[in-house]
């Protein structure tokens, strides 16, 4: 096996698939173990919160998914930058692969966030700044995925979607501030303040960490698997085109 002189060696599709062949099982199993341990620990073996009752158990799903919803987009942003600068196809495909996972994470964050808020707000949906921001992020994800699907030419698709991701990131940040501004007058302080502001007690904190680890490992495993699928799909397209020409 050739010596890997730099991380860019992995930009080679063949190298990427060979390497992930060995590495993917670790991420997959790691994710499974962490998720099972973390969720069972959190759900069965933690007490209720004196203010929120048993709904505090929702944090083991809401916090990790919300984190990953954002991190998935950040990863797509980095991958898009790598494409724009170095034009490594694997990078563009990795961004494409990550988007549906990001969508799943965003949906989980939205549903758990809304359900968590229900006992406090009395409605199944509230235009809380955080929930609204995640809803807008969901729309950004949808547009990104839709654009990939609409463009026939692979290079052009990678170019357009990467520019969209870059521009979208700026506007997503702007929207975050705009939405905070938009809702500041209404639910002052009653928004779903999470562990970032409050101090989460240790008894909740450790199972939460395990769950976060589980979600991170799951994200990595899924993106690696999906990128391999994208690389193979690209190869299928190339082979079919060659057959048609022959």
């Amino acid at each position, binding site marked *: 096996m050739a010596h890997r002189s730099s991380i860019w060696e992995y930009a080679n599709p063949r190298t990427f698939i060979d390497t992930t062949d060995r590495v993917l099982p670790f991420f997959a199993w790691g994710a499974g173990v962490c998720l099972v341990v973390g969720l069972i620990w959190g759900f069965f073996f933690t007490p209720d919160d004196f203010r929120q009752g048993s709904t505090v158990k929702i944090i083991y799903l809401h916090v990790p998914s919300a984190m990953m919803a954002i991190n998935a987009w950040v990863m797509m942003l980095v991958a898009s930058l790598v494409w724009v600068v170095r034009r490594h196809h694997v990078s563009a495909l990795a961004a494409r692969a990550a988007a549906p996972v990001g969508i799943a994470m965003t949906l989980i964050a939205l549903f758990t966030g809304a359900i968590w808020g229900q006992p406090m707000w009395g409605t199944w949906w509230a235009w809380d700044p955080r929930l609204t921001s995640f809803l807008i992020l969901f729309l*950004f994800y949808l*547009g990104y995925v839709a654009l990939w699907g*609409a463009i026939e030419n692979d290079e052009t698709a990678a170019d*357009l979607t990467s520019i969209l991701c870059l*521009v979208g990131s700026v506007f997503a940040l702007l929207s975050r501030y*705009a939405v905070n*501004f938009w809702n500041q007058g209404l639910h002052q302080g009653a928004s779903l303040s999470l562990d970032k502001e409050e101090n989460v007690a240790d008894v909740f904190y450790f199972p939460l960490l395990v769950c976060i680890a589980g979600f991170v490992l799951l994200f990595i495993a899924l993106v690696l698997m999906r990128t391999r699928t994208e690389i193979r799909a690209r190869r299928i397209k190339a082979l079919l085109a060659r057959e048609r020409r022959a």
Partner: protein
Amino acid sequence: MTALLMRDLQLAIRAGGGFGLALAFFLIVVVLVPLGVGPDSTRLSSIAPGMLWLGALLACLLSLDRIFSLDWEDGSLDLLATSPMPLEAVAMVKALAHWITTGLPLVLATPLFAVMLNLPGTGLNALLLSLALGTPALSVIGTFGAALTVGLKRGGLLLSLLVLPLYVPTLIFGAEMARRAAETQGYQTPLLMLAGITCGVIALLPFATAAVLRANLR
């Protein structure tokens, strides 16, 4: 550059869909709003700033796919790309033409529609200012979206999906500015934010639009 601008404006007028379409759509929205939410004047008053903003935004959306489509189909866009004028300038001129044919008429027509939706008198000037500041951003952002979907056959819906999330900051600050003025509150913060976003968008987004056009023309 002026030549391109004049040409686009002439095309818009000749095609007939230019000035009139956005205004007609705005009118339709203004008619549909009371039909949808009921004719109670106080309720209409309170939602008027937001609804007028929404109407203007949606009317801008309508004419976006036209920005590059004609030039794409007859090959003029390729010619423009090889001309000495940088694509960034093309993007800006196209956005300006769109604003002149869509945003500007909307701003001018707003006083009439504001009356129909019972906008409190205190709010009218701020609403006009917010639209005057915000619609250029809508045109520039829309031009970016139009460039992304320029080759696509039924790109209209995708165009909306791509552009509407990008409209969110402008909409929030524009509508908030109008709403606060209507309730006789101070509206400096949204005004500054709105102006800042528009300036930033005009200064930076044409570069992204040009990159998109280059990618599509390759």
